[in-house]
């Protein structure tokens, strides 16, 4: 059975390692914070200038001077630090952030990503996405496998304007967990009960299936 968005987040959270500095994008990536494994300490970076992002505040404790990159009210944790936007993107560019989780509209088999612009629609801007994808050493995309029209979002080439090239390392969709290799999307795990045939049918880019593909353990 295909994963729901919470299960996608949970699977990604399994890849977190103790001590990781992590930047979580808006949407499903944000949910990853709810599934950090026991015994694993990760520090969340918010690119508007915070390391050590805590949970949402209790009602009444909202601080308008304390928001995340999605403009939501948040809190700090012991050991947090604030800094300006240049240092924030400085640490991103310098590869100090261990893992970045992003949503995407399309990913190509070479790891190109499109997630900021749809021709013909009002363009809101790339925000920090282009900086993140150009710099992060470890990018996991969390997204639905197909778009609302049922078309595959894992493509030979992106059709939408790119956000970054050859940068995505892994993808988790409701159907499967992939790694990007030089040759295409390497299928690593299936969602419980999802068949390889279904994944093949819904993956337009080059899919690599080697040996037995285990089901995810969530």
């Amino acid at each position, binding site marked *: 059975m295909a994963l729901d968005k919470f299960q996608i987040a949970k699977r990604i959270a399994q890849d977190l390692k103790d001590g990781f500095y992590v930047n979580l994008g808006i949407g499903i990536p944000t949910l990853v914070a709810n599934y950090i494994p026991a015994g694993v300490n990760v520090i969340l970076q918010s*690119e508007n200038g915070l390391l050590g992002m805590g949970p949402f505040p209790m009602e009444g404790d909202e601080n*308008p*001077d304390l928001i995340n990159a999605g403009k939501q009210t948040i809190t700090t944790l012991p050991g947090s630090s604030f800094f300006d936007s*240049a240092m924030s993107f400085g640490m991103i560019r310098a590869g100090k952030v261990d893992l970045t989780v992003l949503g995407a509209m399309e990913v190509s088999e070479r790891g190109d990503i499109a997630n900021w612009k749809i021709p013909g629609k009002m363009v809101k801007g790339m925000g920090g996405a*282009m900086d993140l994808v150009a710099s992060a050493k470890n990018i996991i995309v969390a997204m639905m496998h197909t778009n609302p029209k049922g078309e595959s979002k894992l493509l030979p080439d992106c059709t939408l304007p790119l956000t*970054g090239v050859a940068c995505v390392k892994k993808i988790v969709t409701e159907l499967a967990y992939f790694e990007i290799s030089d040759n295409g999307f390497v299928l690593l795990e299936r969602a419980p009960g999802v068949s390889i045939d279904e994944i093949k049918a819904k993956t337009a880019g080059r899919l690599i299936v080697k040996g037995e593909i285990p089901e995810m353990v969530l």
Partner: protein
Amino acid sequence: MNKVFSNAHAAVSGIKNGSTILLGGFGLCGIPENCIAALVELGVNNLTCISNNAGVDDFGIGLMLQKKMVKKMIASYVGENAEFERQLLNGELEVELIPQGTLATRCMAAGYGLPAIFTPAGVGTEVANGKEIRNFNGKDYLLEYAFDADFAIVKAWRGDTMGNLIFKDTARNFNPLMAMAGKTTIAEVEELVPAGELDPNQIHTPGIYVHRIFKGVQYEKRIEQRTVRKEA
């Protein structure tokens, strides 16, 4: 050497039609509310505004858009603003979208006397169109230029009469960077104290970068996304 101004109206004097202005803040967090209100009252137009966002319909830079004061907006993200969209689609407004880190670093470059920087953000995308690409250690970078702005308008938490500034929480964001980048920098602060009251080790923006400072009033500090949790 008096940098202290009595209010926003006095502090924004000299901003003219056609000026290029850096405006601090991220979303509605840490924006110079008093100066924006004063500019709206002043009614200057044909402005080029550089700010991470363009406010919302009825707050922040959105107030300047309502009055059609902005000719060109340079930002990284301009969602949440119907009037912005209307002016853009009608061709009444130019917009240049640039990656957020590039925006921040181009401010810092101006404040640090660095004429240009190299960043990987935007390589292989339309952002790279017409820009110089250079490879360092096997990786491609775009050459991006320092901003050259007439004015920078920033909001700080505390400031002193010599122009030293301290920011609070994530309201820091672009403010110290833009403060460094303006030919004339105007700072509004929640609390203005005599020189000597701020710990010199805690100052984020040294006064050398700040030309005018005043105590702002009636901060609304509107929250864009009020998110709370229920459990204890």
